[in-house]
């Protein structure tokens, strides 16, 4: 236990943990000491001198922010000298400050304003002309600087240094001419750049998309969570008059600790996108036309009713998406099972994530991290900060990934197994463990790995044998090891091996895929072979409990997965499809098959916020859905933390909250059971009853915050890991395709937000310099990448970060669908790459 220290502040005895600063101790005692440069999440700097206090037996005034409490210390925060200092510092700051509060974004939420009001002089003795510095300097895509308003607290600079370990901002010149800037010619383009706006105590740094939009006191705010990636950052939504204008980070040490990435910060601009669907659409004479909700739901009931009548409920399929809230996913599951179909899924080329065994705080303190097939920077950005923090604290990082990641400079070891041999690498480590200590693996696993000697693993994966041994040693040797797998791991077989490795080494698992709420959606049972809570269908007790809760018999037949669905639909076995939040034409691994299947379907209904290619071409009914910011709902993040996303504004036009749409559809279809819910919180309350692991989760509104973390334990797979073989190869080209999300292009909605547009690189394909040379490809030149179902025209990015023999194409490209190339789990797709002649314009 930490020791505590008792000191006296202004005559009051205060007991605080050892190591606390005087500033913090005073705050805990309810005594305000004004402070500008200090920030709880940055190291003390002692720069502004506003917090100076008197400490008995210490000469001169001392900075409270940088003084650590001592037993028996006596502090005075209100002596004439302390007051004089505050007045003076504030007066000094105002001498050259423009005092343009009427047009400053920070007005109303500005330390300088508040402190001058509270501690400052009412008149100024400064009669000289104010110094001029740079105004409205665009530091980068997200942040604008007014050097005259800057108080040089260096919070922004310290953030870059301490949190990012990337000194994109610094102080230039000296003395009174000091100013914040980027290196000459450089751009402040960190993925986390917007955080400095939150940190800036005045209005020197402004948010490019928010500035001049509103006065602080006009904004209303709600604590919420970000719905754009699996981290689910805790944030605050703020807006006015029905518009969501800004989001800011919220303190939450166990998740994002107040930071946000720029996708989260600027992505919510999609709420106002002109292409949003405002009313239901119904297809008439081949065209989607605006309709009322009644008309749309009637058409939908007729469409589904006819199919069920003719071919039974199993001719109906439900396809969800990892972007859904838990409430929407839960109701979809319930709807499908109540209708009598097991054809429910949300996975388009991914595997359902394994249980989260580690928290993000664990990650920040990990001793050993194996980052397997995941790129936090693009897939779960905040994790990049936490991995860096772990390494800074002495942790060791090992990376297994087909590309060189930005984090590689922090890595102790980096492994680039041949595409398709990743599972072999993991099995090889397992086999090494068994050889090193016979009997350390369960008997049935041994078989899976028995054939894999170190030499064979090395030759199959192309990784150095000794290096693999070091990795195995590191995992076994540390009680605080974490295996973090990411979006590159797509197949169940590899996942099962990774889980086995975690179990065998005692490392804890943490994983994510490309979807923001995959874990929650899987928990809600949006799977053909699972119940809510991921119980197997055969679990009679679970089934009975659900039937009681739902007041309906439920179909426990295993249904078709989203992979099995399409051939059955093409054959006419499945005839009606309900899609929520997914766009299979651009997202499913085999678009050709999907298009043929959808063309065969009798009836397709979708709920969406935008008109997706699937909806445009195949839907008979499209129901306009609300987007994050417009609807309440819970999201389960990659570490199993549940966050409550809040509706700050009303859904656009006639759009409805997604969970409500599902309930409305259920009622229209006369699905068995009760479908009346007052709000999303009521759905969550039912989830807490339906899923034992979510039992404690409820909407807690104390202080306006909602945060819960639940632990759950379920068998990842009932099967022992299977013996891996290098993956199947498809395609005739000579470069192996790798793909994955890129941050600013990863969300089909957020990429339309004004603050995000332009931040994603133009659709590109990365290729190794030697391959490029062989193929006659130069950096930046147009190239064609031809895969299983077609070709994409992309811009070549020649980069050593891409392994030789591979080509990387981002998973979601604004206007192109990489699924034309046929990337799919467990298969190595060989693509053809060739330069395109540049047409003279």
């Amino acid at each position, binding site marked *: 236990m930490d020791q505590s220290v008792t000191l006296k502040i202004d005559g009051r005895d205060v007991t605080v943990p050892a190591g606390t600063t005087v500033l913090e101790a005073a705050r805990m005692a309810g005594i305000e000491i004004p402070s500008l440069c200090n920030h709880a999440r940055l190291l*003390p700097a002692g720069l502004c001198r506003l917090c100076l206090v008197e400490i008995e037996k210490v*000469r001169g005034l001392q900075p409270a922010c940088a003084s650590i409490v001592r037993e028996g210390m006596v502090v005075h925060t209100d002596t004439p000298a302390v007051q004089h200092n505050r007045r*003076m510092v504030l007066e*000094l*700051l105002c001498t050259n400050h423009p005092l343009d509060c009427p047009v400053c974004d920070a007005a109303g939420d500005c330390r300088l304003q508040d402190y001058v009001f509270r501690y400052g002089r009412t008149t100024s003795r400064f009669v000289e002309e104010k110094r001029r510095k740079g105004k409205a300097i665009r530091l980068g895509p997200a942040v604008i600087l007014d050097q005259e308003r800057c108080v040089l607290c260096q919070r922004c600079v310290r953030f870059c240094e301490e949190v990012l370990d990337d000194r994109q901002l610094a102080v230039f010149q*000296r*003395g009174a001419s*000091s100013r914040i800037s980027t290196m000459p010619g450089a751009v402040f383009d960190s993925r986390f750049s917007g955080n400095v706006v939150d940190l800036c105590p005045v209005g020197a740094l402004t948010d490019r998309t928010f500035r001049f939009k509103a006065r602080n006191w006009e904004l209303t705010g709600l604590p919420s969570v970000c719905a754009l990636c699996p981290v689910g950052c805790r944030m605050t939504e703020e807006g006015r008059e029905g518009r969501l204008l800004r989001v800011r980070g919220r303190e939450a040490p166990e998740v994002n600790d107040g930071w946000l990435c720029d996708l989260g910060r600027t992505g919510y601009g999609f709420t106002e996108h002109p292409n949003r669907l405002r009313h239901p659409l119904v297809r008439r004479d081949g065209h989607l036309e605006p309709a009322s909700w009644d008309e749309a739901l009637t058409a939908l009931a007729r469409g589904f009713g006819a199919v069920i009548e003719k071919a039974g409920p199993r001719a109906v399929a439900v396809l969800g998406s990892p972007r859904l809230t838990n409430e929407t996913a839960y109701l979809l599951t319930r709807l499908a099972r109540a209708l009598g179909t097991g054809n429910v899924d949300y996975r388009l080329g991914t595997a359902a994530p394994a249980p989260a065994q580690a928290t993000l705080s664990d990650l920040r303190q990990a001793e050993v991290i194996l980052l397997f097939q995941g790129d936090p920077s693009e897939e779960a950005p905040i994790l990049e900060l936490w991995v860096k923090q772990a390494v800074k604290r002495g942790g060791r990082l090992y990376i297994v990934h087909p590309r060189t990641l930005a984090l590689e400079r922090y890595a102790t070891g980096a492994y680039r197994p041949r595409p398709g041999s990743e599972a072999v690498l993991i099995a090889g480590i397992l086999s090494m463990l068994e050889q090193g200590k016979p009997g350390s693996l369960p008997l049935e696993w041994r078989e899976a790995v028995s054939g894999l000697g170190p030499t064979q693993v090395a030759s199959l994966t192309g990784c150095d044998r000794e290096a693999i041994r070091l990795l195995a040693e590191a995992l076994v040797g540390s009680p605080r090891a974490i295996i973090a797998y990411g979006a590159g791991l797509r197949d169940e077989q590899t996942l099962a091996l990774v889980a086995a490795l975690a179990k065998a080494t005692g490392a804890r698992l943490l994983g994510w895929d490309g979807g923001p709420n995959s874990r929650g959606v899987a928990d809600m049972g949006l799977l053909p072979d699972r119940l809510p809570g991921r119980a197997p269908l055969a679990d009679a007790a679970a089934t009975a409990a659900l039937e009681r809760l739902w007041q309906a018999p439920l179909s426990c037949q295993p249904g078709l997965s989203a992979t099995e669905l399409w051939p059955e639909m093409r054959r006419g076995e499945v005839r009606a499809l309900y899609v929520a939040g997914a766009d299979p034409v651009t997202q499913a691994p085999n678009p050709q098959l999907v298009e043929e299947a959808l063309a065969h379907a009798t009836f397709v209904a979708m709920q969406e916020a935008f008109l997706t290619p699937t909806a445009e071409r195949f839907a008979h009914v499209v129901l306009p859905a609300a987007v994050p910011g417009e609807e309440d709902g819970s999201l389960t993040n990659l570490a199993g933390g549940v966050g409550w996303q809040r509706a700050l504004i009303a859904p656009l036009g006639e759009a409805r909250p997604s969970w409500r749409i599902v309930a409305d559809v259920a009622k229209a279809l006369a699905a068995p059971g009760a479908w009346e819910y007052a709000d999303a919180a009521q759905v969550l309350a039912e989830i807490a009853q339906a899923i034992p692991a979510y039992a404690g989760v409820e909407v807690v509104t104390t202080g306006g915050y909602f945060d819960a973390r639940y632990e759950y334990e379920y068998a990842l797979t009932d099967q022992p890991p299977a013996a891996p073989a290098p993956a199947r190869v498809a395609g005739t080209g000579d470069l192996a395709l790798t793909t994955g999300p890129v941050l600013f292009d990863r969300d089909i909605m957020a990429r339309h937000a004004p603050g995000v547009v332009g931040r994603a690189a133009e659709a590109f394909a990365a290729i190794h310099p030697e391959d490029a040379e062989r193929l006659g490809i130069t950096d930046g030149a147009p190239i064609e990448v031809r895969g299983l179902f077609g070709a994409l025209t992309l811009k070549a990015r020649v980069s050593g970060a891409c392994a030789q023999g591979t080509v990387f194409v981002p998973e979601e490209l604004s206007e192109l669908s990489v699924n034309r190339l046929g990337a799919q789990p467990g298969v190595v797709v060989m693509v053809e790459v060739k330069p395109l002649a540049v047409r003279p314009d």
Partner: protein
Amino acid sequence: MDKFLLRNVGVPDSHHIEVYLSRGGYESWRRVLTSMQPQAVVDLVKSSGLRGRGGAGFPTGMKWGFVPQGVYPRYLVCNADEGEPGTCKDRVLMENDPHLVLEGIAISSYAIEAHLAFIYVRGEFTLSAERLEAAIAEAHAHGFLGKNILGSGYDLDIVVHRGAGAYICGEETALLTSLEGERGNPRLKPPFPATEGLYRKPTVINNVETLANVPLIVQYGAEWYKSMGTEKSPGIKLFALSGQVKRPGVYELPLGTPLRTLIEEYGGGTLENRPVKAVIPGGSSAPMLTAAHLDTPLDYESIAAAGSMLGSGAVIVIAEGTCIVSVVRRLIEFYAHEDCGQCIPGREGIAWLARILERIEAGQGREEDLDLLLDICDGLSGRSLCPLGDAVVGPVRSSLKHFRDDYLAHIRTGQCVQPVAVTIA
């Protein structure tokens, strides 16, 4: 009197090791290596009463004793940034007797058990840096530096680091930051360099002249050292005499020598024999004294009692006829220019002082400006992040105390009324 610190200055080729050796050089180093334990050296310096010559006058042996037991590596840093206006004594040593400086560094490094020492040389001192580097090469060649020095098993390397032109880098923590390759910003204290200095390791920082005294103390003993100077300020000191005197220069004198002796006997009196108006006795940040203080002995205590400080021992003489407003304005402009800009009092306070002084000098002053100047000084001294704030207030407060009439004349007449209007550019 005999010269010790300057004994080799003026000897032809005094910067070469052969000359240094021929005059008994490196004998102290040899003695230390062959017959003294590190602690014995610390004790010797402690008992000599040697105090830091860089400005603060802190007892050197005591400073060495602050290095925490058992924490290694440790570093010794020689502060050769000499940038304080008026101060030019370290340069004389480095250019003329670089081996004395090296010998001092070597013995001191041994005393604190450091194996790597740095000399942070003011950027403009090209010749000093060249001479030191050449001397280091010679010392290596003669086995006085490097591995297993003189067969003792002790290793030492000395690295010369050149500053880039910032006065603030003379402040010890700014110096360390700069030495680490960062922008030379002063750091918060605590932690103090002795516990967490260069690269967060225990570090002793001493001035060039301080270190140059060490071989002499080893050679002649602590008693000899204490036989000179005063009880609390023992020993010898280099005084850099400048300003309106006939023979400006660096003079070696025992501490306690009266100010008048330095100015009149060594400096030959003031230019045109004008009466002394003001004396800055310890570098530009020391408060001004007046003609009434000319009999004050030049030692730490006496100068402090007179209301100033001995500082680096740079004595600047200002004769009657000179406008004090102009002098102070120029000094404060210097500080405003050299301030690092980190803390608000330093950055905004000094700049404001400079602008008010400019206004007063230009005849645009108001009487209330004088109170404002003092109030800003109160906001600076003891409150800025580094001691620069205290340095700045010295000239302002003291000039307002002793020469308020010069200010009032500017304010009331709108112009300078000094008979010899010396405007200091």
